[in-house]
């Protein structure tokens, strides 16, 4: 019991003293995960929107595939990307293995299904009347689509956060693709795993606390952003259900 308390105290000291290595690890984690979440959002939101609103043949099959991908293990994604970007793999010439880019590729693939699936769910149940009204009042299909997306924006922001949450917390793909290189590809999760195996629990706990703080601040930021847009929209007289 005693050593857990000691570890937590040391962890707090590490965080409050802005330890160099802790900062470099945390900032890499945030940068890599933000980038992959951004890329996954740019691809995933349109996919989810199309699956949620358009009716076409094979849609239910695609939906099933997407839902299956939700539970894909991170190490499987890591292994798949690894075999492609290893020097012996088809994209080996690019020399991507053991770089932050490699982690971003893996994390993007991990975040994509979550963001798509949640966007799909958010847009699927939306009122067709809204679309029909917009189109009958002379909106183009693109304008109508933007209107629908605007109405679903809170749910879509939720989808993006869920995607970020998955990638910032995963260790399998980051370890395999990044190689846990100090000051280069060492993320919060791979560092926690390393320090735990080295028996340095206080450093590991410090990093764990920081990981939670990062997630918390992202969620807090999004909450304020939502409050702000909601107030702004009420001012302009827009109404949202």
């Amino acid at each position: 019991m005693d050593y857990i308390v000691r570890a937590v105290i040391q962890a707090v000291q590490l965080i409050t003293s802005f330890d160099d290595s802790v900062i470099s690890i945390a900032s890499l984690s945030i940068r890599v995960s933000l980038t992959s979440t951004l890329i996954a959002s740019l691809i995933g939101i349109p996919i989810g929107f199309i699956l949620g609103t358009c009716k076409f043949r094979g849609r239910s099959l695609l939906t099933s595939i997407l839902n299956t991908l939700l539970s894909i293990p991170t190490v499987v994604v890591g292994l798949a990307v690894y075999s492609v970007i290893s020097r012996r793999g088809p994209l080996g010439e690019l020399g991507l293995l053991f770089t932050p880019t490699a982690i971003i590729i893996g994390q993007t693939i991990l975040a994509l299904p979550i963001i798509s699936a949640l966007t799909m769910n958010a847009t699927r149940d939306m009122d067709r009347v809204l679309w029909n009204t917009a189109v009958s009042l002379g909106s183009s299909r693109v304008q109508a689509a933007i209107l629908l997306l605007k109405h679903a924006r809170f749910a879509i922001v939720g989808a993006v956060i869920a995607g970020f949450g998955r990638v910032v917390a995963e260790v399998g793909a980051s370890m395999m693709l990044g190689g846990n290189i100090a000051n280069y590809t060492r993320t919060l999760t791979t560092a926690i795993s390393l320090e735990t195996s080295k028996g340095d629990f206080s450093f590991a706990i410090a990093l764990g606390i920081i990981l939670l703080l990062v997630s918390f601040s992202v969620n807090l930021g999004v909450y304020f952003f939502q409050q702000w847009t909601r107030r702004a929209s009420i001012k302009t007289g827009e109404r949202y259900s």
Partner: protein
Amino acid sequence: MKLSKKILSIFLLAFLLVAVITSANVFAKERIILATTTSTDNTGLLAVLLPPFEEKFNVEVHIIAVGTGRALELGRNGDADVVLVHAREQELEFVEQGYGVNRLDVMYNDFVVLGPKSDPAGVASASSVLEAFKKIAENKSVFISRGDNSGTHVKELDIWALAGITPEGNWYRAVGQGMGASINIADQSGGYILSDRGTYLSYKDQTDLVIVFQGDELLFNPYGIMAVNPELHPHVKFDLAMELVNYFVSEEAIEIINSFLVAGEQLFFTYND
């Protein structure tokens, strides 16, 4: 209102773009990849040994710390430029098959058998490591095996084979993890384990395990370094790799290796001191 929203989204996009670009910039730095074992990295040796080299050649040495088997595999695939491992037979095979060149002996220490203080199998009274392993097997005491094709795992399998024992049963547990993690597991399950002395010394404060057997010639643990063959993998940074290989046996490196202490004890020994 419309306008301010547009401005906001442009700002957000710009911010994210900058984030992407700045992280892309980091990728451009010159680097050389050293695939090595957890025993050289987790002990902290490389953290003091590599900076002078990095400064001199203005390069970053990126360490991938894995088991010996995995490190050699990285070299075979061309995913590393230099390999520093400890499993001499596998190293020689690696060079013979043309994957590695210019293999040099760097340093050595030895393996030790760790176990609980109570020593239920009575290993301490063994006259050789073969006898020690036989006692553990006869007593069916818990034995934690790395099980990851690392240098330590290979050595352990060699000893079992020489002792004429096929280790199997509930008491023999292959955990597939690094040296430190495996020591923790052995500690928690009150078992025996084969460890390199360096890792044991750096974990000494965090474990209740003690050395129950040491000093057998069979437990000699030599480390070798080699460059990945540029004829097989033209993309490797061979010139830098050779500089690094030569640096490891330079007077400067020898000095650093021999004066590297953990808990007041020397972890690695070079050949010409």
